[in-house]
């Protein structure tokens, strides 16, 4: 399990359940490595502010993370983490490798802006 304070998604079915039960979901699929840790940190920081978004992580090396690793939107990705954003169960945005706070924030604003509290 990843050492973060985010919700951990451990199975493909839990992944499916999460994106079905929550309108806005951001999942960071990575390892405990240099390019991933900063993204988890950013998500932990933003979680209280974006209460209408469910933030979670998933282990890249867990075979159960195939829905993210094999998503068509992640084709060509060659750097972890794969960070994916879902709206009403549909993958609406995906990024590869480390992201900065302004980059993550701008995606959250663009994709999930409607209900920001």
């Amino acid at each position, binding site marked *: 399990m990843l050492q973060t304070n985010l919700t951990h998604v451990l199975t493909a079915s839990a992944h499916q359940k999460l994106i079905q039960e929550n309108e806005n979901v951001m999942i960071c699929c990575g*390892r*405990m*490595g*240099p*390019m*991933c*840790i*900063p993204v988890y*940190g*950013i998500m932990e*920081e933003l979680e209280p502010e974006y209460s209408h978004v469910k933030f979670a992580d998933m282990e890249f090396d867990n075979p159960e993370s195939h829905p993210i690793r094999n998503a068509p939107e992640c*084709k*060509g*990705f*060659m*750097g*972890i983490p794969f960070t994916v954003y879902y709206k009403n169960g549909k993958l609406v945005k995906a*990024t*590869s*490798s*480390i992201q*900065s*706070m*302004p980059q993550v924030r701008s995606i959250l604003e663009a994709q999930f802006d409607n209900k920001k509290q």
Partner: protein
Amino acid sequence: MPEIFDIIIIGGGPAGLTAGIYASRARMKTLILNEGTVGGQLVLTHEIANYPGVESISGFQLGNIMKKQALTFGCKIRSNVQVTGFDYSANPKIVEINGSERFFGRTVILSPGGEPRMIHVPGETEFKGRGVSYCATCDGDFFTGKDIVVVGGGNSALEEAVSLTKYASNVAVVHQFDQFQAFPYAVEEAKANPKIKFYMESQVRNILGDDSVKQVEIEHLPTGGKTMLSVDGIFIFIGYIAKTQGFEKCVILNDRGEIIVGTEMQTNVPGVFAAGDCIAKRYRQVTTAVADGTIAALSAIEYLRTN
């Protein structure tokens, strides 16, 4: 009446966190403002094996311990913020973050550390995470059975080129000079590896692809001849530079953009100190950063006592 801190520290890497530990332990009202993840470059380091007293530890863990120590002594830490303005000549000194929030400090310690040097060619930013990488341990396995380029001629570049041969079929090392800067052992190991080919006195000019990297164009500098390499990835290890953009407006930097300090880590501005990889110095290590952070904090405390 706004809250006034005794010491505001810009940057929460080993230098800033150490300054935070010393300052808050001395009961100074201390605030660390950090742009990224607390820990700085420590977070980028899988294993630290040369920090005295600790045989081996991940950089992430070491950074977390330093953070915990600073918090325990009462230091306040704000991470993932952007410093958008400052006035260090004012009294108290002013630091603005995220374009709105303002903090006031009687002294300031600058410890923004370093950032990886980019090659600044077309395709580098567009293909980041799609074949352009700065971390072999993170992304190496995406290139199993593929051909890649490694840019650089220092220890990191050659050691990572060798480690990437665990995955890649062929590794082309592109280096701009006719000699390597790496230690002889690293050069010998790379040269002895049959999967590695060298392109000396050459520079990358273009990174091309569609969904991901497909080609890298290199130029042989003495002749101007261009070669197109069909590869799936490019790893860039050409060192780190001081992350001091914008700081030239408040303190004196040298021509490499590093902050010039005296032996007490004082800058040219009274009450403003600097520490860590951002200052003009030869050796950049965790040990030297924490030493600088210690001196900067103690100097700031002394400044507060006498001013």
